[in-house]
């Protein structure tokens, strides 16, 4: 097939969003400063860390959604001293309130939303943790302000362990191909699912599928230069093929039909199934879209014209994928 590595690398440069991004860093720093200055004296001391896809090196520019910045706040508290897990979240909310119109206590974080031109442009999610527990583990504060008591609780969580696992799975250039492949799949998701509702898999669910044996490094050694030559198309193709085979076909009580279903557990506490929020029908729909993607990738394999191969990839990933062409043969022309 056509060598599309240059195109894939350019595509990756177009979509990748990492912690180096100044705009995102600025937003984060402003809020952290605000938090530091305004947090009440009642509040415990804390340290901060970056979490989420930027910290993992798998972030991409959003398509229609807003930018999502994830910050972890580790409070030096023992969860057993805070029967109400929402209490430390209120410290954060109250310190940041007034800065913008929207500061909300959500189930798993405190979210600050920035508006631009009447719609949400950024949001910063502060996850609140208790980090001075008798068992030495870290716990995240779950629940909203007015949730029933059973929905306000501490849950074991290890976001930094997760980042470490993802970052240390491969090293050097192999790790770079791993991260690129995750970004390609996330971009496909962003381009092919609407941002509303839970019908799309989460970015972390796709990341864990790749991490958990769907991805394998695809490279060959150039015998002349002895350098590794990476083949991102093949790495992606294999990864999608493996994701497809992770689905199992079984009866769904809820949908009253046969459905393709998938599960993948977080490799750190709380070891939850990352597809648990999708219904059987939604997973079945995901399966058919994965199948469609695989057949499009097969189509790309069969193309001999660069423009046609790129056109299919634009359809899969959006306009960020470059459309290159083969050398043109202009011939002659006769007009009268």
């Amino acid at each position: 097939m056509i060598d599309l590595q240059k195109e894939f690398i350019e595509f990756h440069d177009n979509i990748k969003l990492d912690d180096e991004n100044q705009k995102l860093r600025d937003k984060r720093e402003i809020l952290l400063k605000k938090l530091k200055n305004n947090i009440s004296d009642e509040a415990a001391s804390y340290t901060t860390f970056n979490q989420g896809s930027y910290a993992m090196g798998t972030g991409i520019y959003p398509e229609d959604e807003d930018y999502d910045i994830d910050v972890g706040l580790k409070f030096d508290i023992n969860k057993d001293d805070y029967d109400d897990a929402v209490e430390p979240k209120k410290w954060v909310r109250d310190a940041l309130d007034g800065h913008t119109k929207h500061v909300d206590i959500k189930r798993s974080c405190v979210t600050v939303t920035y508006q631009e031109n009447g719609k949400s442009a950024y949001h910063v999610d502060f996850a609140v943790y208790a980090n001075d527990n008798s068992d030495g583990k870290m716990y995240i504060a779950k629940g909203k302000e007015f949730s029933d008591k059973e929905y306000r609780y501490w849950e074991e969580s290890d976001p930094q362990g997760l980042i470490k696992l993802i970052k240390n799975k491969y090293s050097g250039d192999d790790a770079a191909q791993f991260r690129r492949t995750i970004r390609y799949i996330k971009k496909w998701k962003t381009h092919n699912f609407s941002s509303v509702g839970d019908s799309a898999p989460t970015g972390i669910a796709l990341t864990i599928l790749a991490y958990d044996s769907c991805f394998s490094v695809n490279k060959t050694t150039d015998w002349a230069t002895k350098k590794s030559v990476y083949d991102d198309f093949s790495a992606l193709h294999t990864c999608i093929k493996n994701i497809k085979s992770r689905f199992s076909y079984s009866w769904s009580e809820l949908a009253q039909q046969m459905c393709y279903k998938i599960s993948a557990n977080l490799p750190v506490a709380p070891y939850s199934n990352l597809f648990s929020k999708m219904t059987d029908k939604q997973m079945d729909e995901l399966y058919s879209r994965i199948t469609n993607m695989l057949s499009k990738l097969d189509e790309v394999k069969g193309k001999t014209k660069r423009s046609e191969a790129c056109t299919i990839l634009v359809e899969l990933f959006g306009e960020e994928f470059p459309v290159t062409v083969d050398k043109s043969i202009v011939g002659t022309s006769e007009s009268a």
Partner: protein
Amino acid sequence: MRYKNSIDNIILEIDEQVEKLFYTYVENYDFAVESGGILIGTLNPAYNSVRLTNITEPFPKDIRTQYEFKRSEDGHQNAMNNFWEQSNFRKTYLGEWHTHNQKIPQPSHIDIKNWLKISKKKNNNSEWIFFIIIGTEEICIWTIQNKKIIKLERIENY
């Protein structure tokens, strides 16, 4: 300037510098000899559009008389290669243009035969090949679809 093929809504966007160049031919038309060249641009499948970014103008080896323009490969192929390389391999051959001594240009039989032949070429990168005739008052654009010649409509107010 934007043009649309109303059948499958393919949009041809013409860069301002190309449009200006076309209008210098409209304004300076002297009825002595015909001019022509190739159309060069990029493909934008995400928007179902093609962008015309450059054209070539007559080269010495082209045959130019009062009623015909026979474009040779010389010069045009080289220019095309340069645009291709300089654009990171994005720019491609998109078709042909030539002048007519007509207010509102109409393709001749020779033009039509030529266009059908060019559109059939297997090595075209673009699914759509465009043909432009510069008249003494108007510029008209056609494309070929299923062996039929289709005139593009100008999209106003863009």
